């Protein structure tokens, strides 16, 4: 596989065209952001070779950054197929946009930004297809959630066994939220990004990130409250049936 990449990316559409329409930042490295903004000279050398048509160099770039891309995709989606699709889409866009990457910036951040934008696009596609219809929890899940709400703690985290159940419950809760709310919640709590990092990654102002974060937490709170109310109603209904004739 020895096909030159030189020149091709310039004629290609931008990697994050659909996201740009919504105000998300492009994957341009002119706006570096992220946690550890380190520049790896080895990346630059591999990029140069890739642009010269060396497919093995690109394979090395994939090997070096594959795990980061998979981790980002996994923070947004639990299905392994979706995670792999997102990773493929990300590296395809990276490959065809390589000529637009400015050497000296952090390649890892550039790739991460493309991955986040791909996840955001996928969230919006799913919302359009109205795949997320789940609102009710199983009785055991709702009871568990109630217990957790009653005994929240900053220091005590979920046990290993509880995490699977928590993930199921969260999946259902998130399915009712907008793509923007999900995006912010994942970046804040899973990626553990700061407001500034998110702002730089998405091309938003810090004020916008804060407002979106507030709205997202509020939406999650309402979803949790709805579930609590539903659980209360269920309990009252069960009690009425028991007391009744």
């Amino acid at each position, binding site marked *: 596989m020895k096909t030159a990449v030189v020149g091709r990316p310039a004629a290609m559409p931008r990697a994050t065209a659909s996201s740009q329409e919504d105000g998300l930042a492009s994957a341009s490295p002119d706006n570096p952001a992220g946690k550890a903004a380190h520049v790896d000279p080895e990346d630059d050398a591999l990029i140069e070779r890739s642009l010269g048509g060396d497919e093995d160099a690109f394979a090395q770039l994939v090997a070096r950054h594959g795990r980061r891309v998979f*981790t980002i995709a996994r923070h947004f989606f639990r299905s392994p197929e979706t995670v792999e699709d997102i990773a493929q889409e990300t590296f395809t866009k990276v490959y*065809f946009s390589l000529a637009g990457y400015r050497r000296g910036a952090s390649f890892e951040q550039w790739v991460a930004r493309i991955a986040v934008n791909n996840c955001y696009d996928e969230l919006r596609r799913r919302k359009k297809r109205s795949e997320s219809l789940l609102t009710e929890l199983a009785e055991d899940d709702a009871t568990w959630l109630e217990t957790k709400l009653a005994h929240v703690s*900053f220091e005590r985290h979920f046990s290993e066994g509880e995490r699977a159940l928590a993930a199921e419950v969260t999946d259902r809760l998130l399915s009712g939220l907008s793509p923007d709310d999900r995006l912010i919640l994942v970046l804040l709590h899973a990626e553990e990004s700061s407001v500034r990092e998110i702002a730089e990654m998405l091309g938003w102002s810090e004020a916008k990130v*804060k407002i979106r974060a507030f709205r997202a937490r509020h939406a*999650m709170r309402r979803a949790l409250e709805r579930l609590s109310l539903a659980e209360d109603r269920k309990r009252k209904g069960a009690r009425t049936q028991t007391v009744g004739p």
Partner: protein
Amino acid sequence: MNCAQVQRDARRSFGGARPASAEARRHLDGCRGCREALKYDILTAELMRSYATPRGESEVTPSPFFLTRLRGRLDAERRERGLSPWESAVMAARGWLLAFAAVVAVMCAVSLSSLRDGPGQLDVAGDLNAEVLALPPGTENILIANGESLSNDAVLSTLVNEENNHGRK
């Protein structure tokens, strides 16, 4: 730190401003009022962490076939992106072109079929003529009314007789 300060500090941390201070965290664990005020935020953060935590290393590690599949996809994309504008247009309209070609093929088949049926009928008539013409001169029949046929000689003798009878009158 009092409750208001702790809650403000904690809310900032949930909003991504900075992690809650150790003092605030300690206060929260000992203060029921603050926990109640922040319970949804604390639970949201914990749920999101659980949701995003991979169930195993395999979930965040590319499979051994990932690169092969990626190469296949890159090849396909390259082919698609490498087409000239008119090739792209043809590729985009190939469904319509196929449908059009199918309709044309059906119409040609129907036309050919009707053309073949026409000459066939003519051939039948031609065969009849050929059959009549092929009769030996002495036995040639002449069709008359009611589907009866007479030989050439019989017709001639009838005409001669009629002329003779007319002459006698």
